[in-house]
């Protein structure tokens, strides 16, 4: 069967979240033709779920802030295995990218003197997150979407990419299907930007939507690109735990930024019990100092609830395992208590955290202005992804760029809250810029029709097997259960080896998956196709995690509970071998230049 249609662009962007839209805007601005493919309707990408804000050292709320402090915070949060050049670029360029959004119509919350207001967040030394209540992601995506509307970018909505096609080792195009009719489309492009987001759907409890199946990671991997840091998964400490149907949905860190505290079933603020040494100088000594910090007292240090996400998630996990959890297996997150401190607390909470108020009221019958929430860790973000050049965002495949969550490097072993939205716009812009540059000097590539044909045939195989094949939903569920149980927050060698064994079985079952019905909008069929991507990502996560025999950031091993200096000198990379097997290797980190070393030293106190 041949493809239904063929499209040709200078730059093709895959994914229409923050990074993809920003890349499309930049490329279109450079005067090249741009196509944008998105898996859902425009404006529905997972960026919409981001709540707290975007980190940029604009120093509006504390003039001691600067790119140097932001850089040092990012490196400390990432446990120094970050790509330092990306962390540097990110800290330097984020303020301009945020201001640019205002020029495009974004309406951020304001400071008393009328500038963009910035809030406190975990791991950030000063109030740094530009925000709009707790719906910053919506503001970002809508602003970029509306701006894109007028730039002549062609948007292909509800299209899913099945395969990345190369021409002589260069990215040349993709094969995709549309959900509405289930038809196949070939796209050729001189440069391709991958901006497909994360892979949270590999786990059972996740804040990610159905789209987060690691498509970009897996497409690039199968085409020969190198993935790095795949062992580093961020388990966000505060997801909803009850009712069961909403388990995993995000509760913004902004709740803690506004004074929310974590307590166990004994009413104890357990975060004071375990403060890592490298954060001690910056952490409040008691509850009173923590509250002064929330009130923006510049002499106060931040409360321990605002330690990095990896650490807070593990502390919650510890409390629950020790039997000090809440009734539904989480801990308590209490913002209602601030009524003891400020007069109009309920109104203040509703104004600062409107969508959290709404979310708990409607989904859990709970009023957060009077009652503590129950929260627990949820799979939120993958630090690992496609290895890219820091300046251009080009991957190890020429002509293939990557930005946002599917690219790796800036976050190292753990991402700070607020650094994702700024990452999207800083590196989305760069990816669009360099992709357009490359497209301008490149000839149109050729897409091998045979490759597209083979991929189409393989994609349709589930229909041949029909209901006699494996139920794709069941395979996906079993995969999620296995990853959650065996490669989750606390890991060990034996369980991860077991996971790798199980993955081989899931791969075999996925190859037998079958589905009935027509090709039009058939979710069962879509799940069959997504499964391959999830399985490749899951394998890269498990194998990388086995290789890293230490604990660092989002990767915690009970059999190697300490950080090991030697493991701080390299990233772990996964690549596909010609025989289809996965190769795991160690990629030495580039040495930090003297000027950045000095910045880090200066910020250590």
């Amino acid at each position, binding site marked *: 069967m041949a493809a239904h249609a063929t499209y040709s662009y200078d730059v093709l962007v895959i994914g229409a979240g923050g990074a993809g839209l920003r890349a499309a805007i930049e490329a279109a601005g450079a005067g090249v033709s741009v196509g944008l493919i998105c898996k859902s309707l425009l404006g529905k990408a997972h960026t919409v779920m981001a709540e707290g804000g975007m980190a940029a050292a604009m120093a509006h709320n504390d003039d001691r802030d600067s790119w140097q402090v932001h850089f040092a915070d990012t490196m400390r949060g990432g446990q120094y295995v970050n790509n330092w050049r990306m962390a540097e670029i990110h800290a330097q360029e984020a303020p301009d990218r945020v201001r640019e959004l205002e020029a495009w*119509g974004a309406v951020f919350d304001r400071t008393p003197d009328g*500038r963009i207001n910035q809030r406190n967040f975990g791991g950030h030394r000063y109030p740094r997150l530009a925000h709009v209540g707790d719906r910053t992601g919506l503001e970002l995506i809508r602003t970029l979407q509306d701006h894109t509307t007028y730039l002549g970018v062609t948007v292909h909505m509800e299209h899913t990419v099945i395969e990345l096609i190369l021409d002589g080792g260069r990215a040349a195009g993709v094969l995709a299907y549309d959900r509405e009719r289930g038809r196949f489309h070939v796209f050729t492009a001189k440069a391709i930007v991958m901006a497909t987001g994360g892979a949270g759907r590999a786990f059972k409890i996740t804040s990610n939507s159905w789209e987060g199946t690691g498509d970009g990671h897996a497409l690039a991997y199968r085409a020969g690109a190198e993935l790095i840091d795949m062992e580093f998964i961020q388990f966000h400490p505060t997801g909803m735990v009850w009712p069961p149907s909403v388990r995993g949905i995000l509760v913004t860190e902004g709740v803690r930024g506004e004074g929310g505290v974590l307590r166990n079933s004994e009413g104890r603020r357990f975060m004071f019990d375990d403060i890592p040494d490298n954060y001690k100088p910056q952490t409040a000594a008691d509850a009173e100092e923590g509250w002064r910090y929330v009130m923006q007292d510049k002499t106060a240090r931040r409360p321990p609830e605002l330690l990095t996400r990896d650490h807070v998630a593990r502390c919650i996990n510890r409390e629950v395992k020790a039997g000090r959890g809440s009734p539904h297996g989480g801990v308590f997150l209490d913002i209602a208590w601030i009524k003891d401190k400020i007069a109009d607390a309920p109104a203040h909470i509703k104004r600062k955290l409107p969508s959290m108020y709404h979310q708990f009221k*409607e989904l859990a019958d709970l009023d957060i202005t009077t009652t503590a929430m129950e929260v627990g860790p949820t799979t939120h973000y993958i630090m690992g992804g496609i290895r890219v050049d820091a300046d251009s965002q080009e991957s190890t495949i020429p002509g293939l760029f990557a930005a946002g969550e599917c690219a790796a490097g800036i976050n190292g072993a753990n991402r700070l809250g607020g650094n994702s939205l700024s990452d999207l716009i800083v590196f989305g812009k760069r990816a669009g810029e360099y992709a357009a540059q490359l497209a301008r000097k490149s000839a149109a590539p050729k897409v091998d029709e045979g490759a597209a044909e083979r991929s189409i045939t393989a994609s349709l195989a589930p229909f041949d097997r029909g209901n006699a094949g494996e139920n794709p939903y069941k395979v996906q569920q079993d995969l999620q259960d296995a990853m959650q149980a065996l490669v989750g927050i606390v890991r060990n060698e034996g369980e991860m080896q077991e996971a790798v064994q199980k993955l081989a079985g899931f791969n075999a079952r996925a190859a037998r998956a079958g589905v009935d019905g*027509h090709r039009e909008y058939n979710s069962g069929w879509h799940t069959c196709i997504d499964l391959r991507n999830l399985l490749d990502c899951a394998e890269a996560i498990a194998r990388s995690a086995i290789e890293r025999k230490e604990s660092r950031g989002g990767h915690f091993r009970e059999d190697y509970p300490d950080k090991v200096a030697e493991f701080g000198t390299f990233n772990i990379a996964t690549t596909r071998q010609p025989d289809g097997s996965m190769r795991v290797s160690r990629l030495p980190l580039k040495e930090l230049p003297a000027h950045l070393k000095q910045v880090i030293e200066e910020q250590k106190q």
Partner: protein
Amino acid sequence: MSQATFRIWRSEPGGGAGKFVDYTTEISEGMVVLDAVHKVQAEQAPDLACRWNCKAGKCGSCSAEINGKPRLMCMSRLNSLDLTEPVTVEPMRTFPLIKDLVTDVSWNFRVKKGLKKFKPRQPDAADGTWRMAQRDVDRVQEFRKCIECFLCQDVCHVLRDHDKHEEFIGPRFLLYSAALEMHPLDSDDRLQDLKDQNGIGYCNITKCCTKVCPEHIHITDNAIIPLKERVVDRFYDPVTRLLRMITG
């Protein structure tokens, strides 16, 4: 564990004929309609089509009509519905059907393209930035809470019953226009368009859009009525008209 029956609209591919099909499934505490639809999809009807993304009322993908009311499936808790009767779940009826619960909402994206874009005034400060007071952006922030679920478009009788898609942009885009008109930095003028091309006069403020808005935006009171007043002041106020005749 108890059971409930969901009467879900199923259609033939290509927008062909459709009918309600009853699915009975196990339900548990805290479930929403979208959970039930997913359960049916996973256990009984793998090819059942529905849109969804965030499952938390933030993306506006899972719009449908539940027991006849336009709602987000992810925010409709089963304990708020009468489960002694089958719960009907059907697609938005104002838009062409694609399959089962999925409709073609592309008209909305085309409408937006035809509206004047944001045009900021000159920056206030030498560094290219602006100053705005929080109280001056509160109203626009309310409008910008819109998640583009298009339930307001679905319920609006001007579109639903009178099919004025070519002459009327609907509540969503009146709200969008209001967000731009009331944006402290915007320097463009959309009143002529609102009157002539966007059909603001068709709205007879029945407030159905406000009632179905899952973000609780006061679409009619805070957005449409003020825009109507501005249009009236500009084009229909006798004193202004007289002045314009004199001054040309």
